Structure formats: structure tokens, C-alpha cells
């Protein structure tokens, strides 16, 4: 509908623009400004140029960003692999699949924090279930405190993140799978193509755009993940689970160094904008392809 200079659509946008502008858009700009200051609890602040950035680069930029990238890549890959396998199972025409679809969602439904409490207990070394059962079958020789060792804590936080993120991936891929026209399968079946062959040659290629979309969205969400690590380890032991977000929060909120924290947040924003740019380009290409068809 053409409206020319009609103010009506703008009026409709006012509440959303006000709220999102104030709470999300303005803070993005303010974060950039703060990153060049020595803002802290003191009422005064001065511009300090690139000092916050050089400090960050000289000290812990590389270990933190490498850790964040490994954590994110590992978690997203696991979510996609398990999610795709889950979607294939959910799509199988067997009795009980409706129930199965309902039962996989609780990790996504319950508050993230509550999910983390449950995992914190499972990871408990002396009294927890994983350590207890592991000792019984001879996997561990004694109590194993999952969140007390660097690598174990790293893996444990990834596992919990995968647990929370996988249901959504599975559900999304299932929805995409169900849009594949059944006559394609029937034609292939008539030609004697095996189930696996049909999956590899029909389902997977048609699913690729959805997998790519989910991979990028999941990467962005995982990159932004705060609650899980903060509740399970607060970034420890000895910094082994300190991702960029955790590092920013600790610097700014726990140690009140707003300027330094903001510089770290800017680095996150840069990473996120690269990811979003890729996502936008992909969306554009997909819609163009869709129109061409």
C-alpha cells in the first residue's frame, strides 16, 4: 500500500523505536564512546584515546578470543550435528514420535539458570551422578570434580550449552525437513534409491539453506552466551572458561572498570557485526534465489 507522506506508519513505529532505541541502539553507540574513556565509579571521566584497547591487546586479548572461538565453534558444531540427527529421528514415521517431539523441548523451556543448577549438581565431584556412576564403572579412580579442572570445566560448560541449544536446532531443522516435497522421495524410491541415498541426495541439499541459517544464528547466540558460564564457573578455574562476554562483564561490573570493559565490548560488537553481515548477505542471496524460482 503506497502512503506517500502519511505519518501513520511512523506513529506505529514509535513505541518500538523508543524502547529498542533507548535500551539497545543507544547503548551500542555509548559503548563505543566509553571505550575511549577511563570511566569508572568516580564521577569524572577523561578521554584516554586508545589506551583501553592497547591494554587489552597487550594483556589478554589473544587468549580470550581464541578461547571464545574454540568454545563457540565446538558448541555450535555439536548443536548442529546432534540437532540434525535429532531432526532425522523426529521425522521418522514411527509410533511414539509425537511424544518424542514433546519430550525433547524441556531444556529450552525451563529458565537457563535452572538448567544450569541441575548441571552444576550433575558435575559435582563428590556426590554428583556423573562422577558417582563413572567411579562405579571404573571410569574415574576417585571423585572427579568436573568444574575444578581447566579442560574438564571447559568441556562441561560446552556440554550444558549444547544441552540448552540443541532442542531448538532440532525443531527448526525438522520444520525445514517437512517442507521437502514428498514426490521427490517417492520418485527416488521408485528408482530404487536407498533411504540413506535419499537423505544424502534429496534431504541434505534441500536442507542446506536452513542448516546454514541455523549455523549462523546459533553462532551469534552462542557467542553472546553469558548465563551458563557465569552460573557454572564464573569464568574459572583460572580463567579457563572466560569467554569475551564473561571477560567484559567481570572487568566492567565486578571490577567497575567501565572504560576498559567497554573496549572489550567493542571487540565483541565487531565480531558480531562480521557475523551479522554474513547472515544478512546470506538472507539476501536466499530470498533472491527464492524469487528467481
Amino acid at each position, binding site marked *: *500500500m*503506497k502512503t506517500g507522506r502519511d505519518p*501513520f*506508519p*511512523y506513529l*506505529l513505529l514509535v*513505541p*518500538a*523505536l523508543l*524502547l529498542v532505541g533507548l*535500551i*539497545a*541502539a543507544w*547503548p551500542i553507540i*555509548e*559503548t563505543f564512546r*566509553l571505550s575511549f574513556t577511563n570511566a569508572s565509579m568516580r564521577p569524572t571521566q577523561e578521554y584516554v584515546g586508545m589506551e583501553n584497547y592497547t591494554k587489552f591487546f597487550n594483556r589478554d586479548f589473544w587468549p580470550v578470543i581464541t578461547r571464545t572461538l574454540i568454545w563457540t565453534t565446538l558448541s555450535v558444531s555439536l548443536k548442529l550435528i546432534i540437532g540434525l540427527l535429532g531432526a532425522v*529421528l523426529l521425522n521418522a*514415521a*514411527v509410533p511414539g514420535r509425537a511424544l*518424542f517431539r514433546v*519430550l*525433547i523441548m524441556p531444556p*529450552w*523451556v*525451563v*529458565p537457563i539458570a*535452572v538448567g544450569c*543448577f*541441575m*548441571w552444576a*549438581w*550433575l558435575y559435582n565431584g*563428590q*556426590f*554428583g*551422578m556423573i562422577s558417582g556412576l563413572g567411579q*562405579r564403572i571404573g571410569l574415574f579412580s576417585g571423585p572427579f570434580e568436573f568444574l575444578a579442572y581447566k579442560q574438564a570445566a571447559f568441556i562441561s560448560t560446552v556440554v550444558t550449552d549444547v544441552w540448552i541449544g540443541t532442542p531448538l536446532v532440532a*525443531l527448526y531443522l525438522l520444520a*525445514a525437513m517437512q*517442507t521437502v516435497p514428498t514426490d521427490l522421495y517417492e520418485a527416488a524410491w521408485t528408482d530404487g534409491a536407498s533411504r540413506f541415498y535419499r537423505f544424502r541426495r534429496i534431504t541434505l541439499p534441500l536442507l542446506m539453506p*536452513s542448516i546454514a*541459517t541455523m549455523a549462523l544464528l546459533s553462532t551469534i*547466540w552462542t557467542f*553472546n552466551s*553469558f*548465563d551458563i558460564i*557465569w*552460573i557454572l564457573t564464573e569464568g574459572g578455574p583460572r580463567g579457563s572458561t572466560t569467554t569475551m562476554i564473561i571477560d*567484559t*562483564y567481570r572487568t*566492567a*561490573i565486578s571490577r567497575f572498570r*567501565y572504560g576498559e*570493559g*567497554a573496549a572489550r565490548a567493542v571487540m565483541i*560488537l565487531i565480531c*558480531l557485526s562480521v557475523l*551479522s553481515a554474513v547472515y*544478512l548477505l546470506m538472507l539476501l542471496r536466499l530470498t533472491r534465489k527464492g524469487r528467481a524460482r
Partner: protein
Amino acid sequence: MINRYRWWEYLLIYAGMTLFLVFMLAPFVEAFMVSLRPLNEVFRVPYRFIAEGMSFENYVTIWTAQPMLLRWIMNSFGIAVAVTILSMFCSVPAAYAFARFEFKLRGSILAVFLVVSMVGAAVLIIPLYKLMLAAGLLNSYAAMIVPGAAFTVPAGIFLMRSYFMRIPAELEEAAYVDGASRLYTMRRVILPLAVPGMVVVAVTTFITAYAQQFLFALTFNSKNELNPLPVGLFQFFGHETVRWNEIMAASLVGVLPVLVLYVFLQRFIVAGLTAGAVKE
């Protein structure tokens, strides 16, 4: 016939499903078992899945052991409801504008919402903290509701927009021909038709708001009586002895309402979550 499986295929499918479900549900099962154990059985070596003296006693005693519990659960609900209302108040009209009108900056404004939806709240915590401080909103419900709503608005807009786009534009044109104003047409013609879509958006927003109330409460609130359940319970972590049985009982009581809601409304929730996957 195409869907007929051989016996080993059935076996494989059910084995896979079982494995998947064990991973997804084991934490809930163990949390439930812990909530039934008396404290001395919780801290018992070696670990036993089925302990002695299991009972529902913890579910009775938590309310007196932690008098704030009911308050926290009510806070969680109240905050999530308020977030949903505020978020819908912003996203529904905006989505209608994007779905139906051509106007200058339309693409750019939509892009702003898309970009904002990529940035997690934790990244922006510094200016948000300063904003809450300046507005005098620290230690208030508003400090948890307003940012909570803002970060759910973009997703709401995108979802709601696709519902509006499915309503035929002829309806509005007919109303305009009859001399109805734009506002009247929106309220009386379009919104009633968009109710199913609004239910989907409301339910997904509510679940998201309920699931994610940790960061803002942790950072902006230090009044225990205003805390939502997750932060209320989080305080007990890191103490010498964590009373795991009570924490799990309280957690399960707190999540039971959303789980029930999910089971009843799962059809809407699934529709909302997968809207992007299904091409129109």
C-alpha cells in the same frame, strides 16, 4: 510403503531416540531424585540413584526453610507477564507498519531491528547499568522488565510481520473505501484477524522472558524481595554446604508452571519457533 522400516531400522531409530531423550531429560530426572532425598542421603558416598528415605518432604519444608520462595516465583511470573505485555505493545504496531505500508527508511529501520537482535544484552551491560543508575531504576522491577522487553521486540516484530502479511490487503482497502480511518481499520479489522499470530508471539515471548531472567536481575537488582526465582536460588551457590535437595525442589516447583504451559500450548510454540524455517 515408502515409510515401511525393516526391523533393524526400527531398532536404530528407537535406540537413537532413547539416547537423545536420555541426554535431554537426565538432568531433570536426577534433579527430581535429589529433591526427594533427605540431606544426609544427598551428601552420601558412594552415589546411589535410589536413596533411602526418599519422600516429598522437601516440597513441604522449602516454603518455611526459604520464606522468600513464593515471592520469587511470583516475581518471575510477574516480570515475564509484564515483559510480554510491553514487548507486544511495541512489536505488534511496528510489525503492522512493516507488513503493510511503504515509507521512507522502511528498509533501514528494519535493518536496525535486525542488527539489534544480534547483540546480546550482556555486551551492552555497561551503558545499560549507567542508564538504570541515571534513571533511578536500580533495585526496581522496571530495571528487569524494560530491558527484558526491549531485547524481545525485534524477534516479535519479525514473527508478527509474517502473520500480518498473510492477511489479505483487500480487507483494509474495502474498509478504507467505506471511509474507515487507518487506526479504526487496524483495530477493528486487522487485529481481530491477527489474534492467532498474536497468541503465538505472546507465548514465545513469555517463555523467552521466563527463561532469560538472570542477567538483568543479577546486575541491576540487589533487593532480595524483588528477585526472580533464578537469581533468588543462585545466592545459595558457592556456600560451604549447598542444600541441593531444597534447591532442586524449589527449581522444579518454579519450572512446573512453564512446563505445563508448554505441554498445553506446544503447538503454538512450535509454530512460533519454526516460522522462519517454512518458506511462504
